[in-house]
């Protein structure tokens, strides 16, 4: 079993700064979590879109690191991700994403064009509507089997049926002259969907996306972004997936 990575932070920093004896600037941003978690990669997606350097600090749920007192100081709810930016600590992945998109908006594409009522509406749609359904389907049908647990196929099918109805609305919206959720440009509304949408397309319910021409085209467009390639490369999915 790996050592508690959250306590190894100082070792990681020393190792990074001794490269060939030259001064290496430590990233101001530290992201705590594990790369298998799509809630963590929701943040990695945006960090990479903005071209930001960050250090990953491993908080492995399998070792209970997220309940360690040091981590609870960062997120009292004991969940990943948490992000530290200098002295600032932010938790809740969508709050983190809004914070970094606002603060570092000039480093890369403007993910929060304001005012954009359309962007705000579709940004909100992801959290209470898309995410809970996609999470159940992916967790039951993709993640559980990977770890040898028995999926609750009845629950997965129920949520897949609801997701089917929800994606009809996305299809109609994207068919109505919207290349991205907020219109003509890629925004945080698209970015916040990607980590769970990616796993949905790897799951037995991939046809929910593949069967809808505009949703499919939207996914193909946003997943072709160079920053996304970098994000995917950091997700340690087993070869079977």
């Amino acid at each position, binding site marked *: 079993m790996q050592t508690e990575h959250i306590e190894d932070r100082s070792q990681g920093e020393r190792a990074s700064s001794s490269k060939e004896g030259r001064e290496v600037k430590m990233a101001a941003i530290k992201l705590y979590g594990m790369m298998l978690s799509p809630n963590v990669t929701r943040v990695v997606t945006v960090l990479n879109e903005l071209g930001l350097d960050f250090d990953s600090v491993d908080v492995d749920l399998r070792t209970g690191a997220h309940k360690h007192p040091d981590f609870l100081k960062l997120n009292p*709810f004991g969940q990943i991700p948490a992000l530290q930016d200098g002295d600032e600590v932010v*938790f809740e992945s969508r*709050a983190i994403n809004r914070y970094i998109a606002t603060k570092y908006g000039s480093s890369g594409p403007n993910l929060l064009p304001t005012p954009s009522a359309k962007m705000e509406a579709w*940004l909100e749609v992801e*959290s209470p509507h898309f995410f809970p359904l996609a999470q159940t389907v992916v967790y039951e049908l993709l993640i559980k089997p990977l770890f040898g647990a028995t999926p609750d196929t009845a629950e997965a099918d129920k949520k897949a049926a609801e997701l089917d109805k*929800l994606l009809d609305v996305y299809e109609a919206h994207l068919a109505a002259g919207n290349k991205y959720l907020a219109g003509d440009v890629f925004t945080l509304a698209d970015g916040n969907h990607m980590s769970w949408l990616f796993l949905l397309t790897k799951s037995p319910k991939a046809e929910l996306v593949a069967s809808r021409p505009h949703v499919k085209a939207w996914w193909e467009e946003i997943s072709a972004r160079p920053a996304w390639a970098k994000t995917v490369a950091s997700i340690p999915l087993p070869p079977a997936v």
Partner: protein
Amino acid sequence: MAPVKVFGPAASTNVARVLVCLEEVGAEYELVDIDFPGKGHKRPEHLARNPFGQVPAFQDGDLILFESRAIAKYVLRKYKSEQVDLLRESNLEEAAMVDIWTEVEIHQYHPALSPIVLECFIYPTLRGLPTNQRIVDESLVKAKKVLEIYEAHLSKHKYLAGDFVSFADLNHFACTFYLMDATPYASLFNSYPHVKAWWEDLMSRPSMKKLGVHLCNPTRT
């Protein structure tokens, strides 16, 4: 300036979320009845406003919005003033705190408390279903864990995002009001004195006193 319009019943927690923000900023608004019990929210006229067929929807002149938090933020930004700034967007750290506790309400607080409201109030009164006590008991366990975290947080800060009231606090209004007013579990907060004090402080605000009347209207739609 024409008043803005909110479409949906005032007793809906998501409609109430928008109304409390309109009250806080003192905006003129019109609440439009869309015949929610008669499934007015699924008819084409409303679907044109909210493609998900849900409430609320919102109109300001030619602008139509849906998703209660997107609407609420639009309202809070439009009517922001020196006296009323509930999003704090000109201060990055304060805005991040508002965002964190807004997300916490969605993902931690509401999922723990709302099944209690559903089982003890909504299902029995609206659908004539009996309370599933097992679900209530499981939710009470979750609610206590969440309230412990809120208690620790509110013992260090007057409000959720700091020493100022914000959108994060307002988002907790409807769900908490229903728990307090319409279920036998108001006493849950007694074990968390800072949470209780925070709630009582919020309920002393004119906006919440006014809207509380709508939420406990016995002829709620």
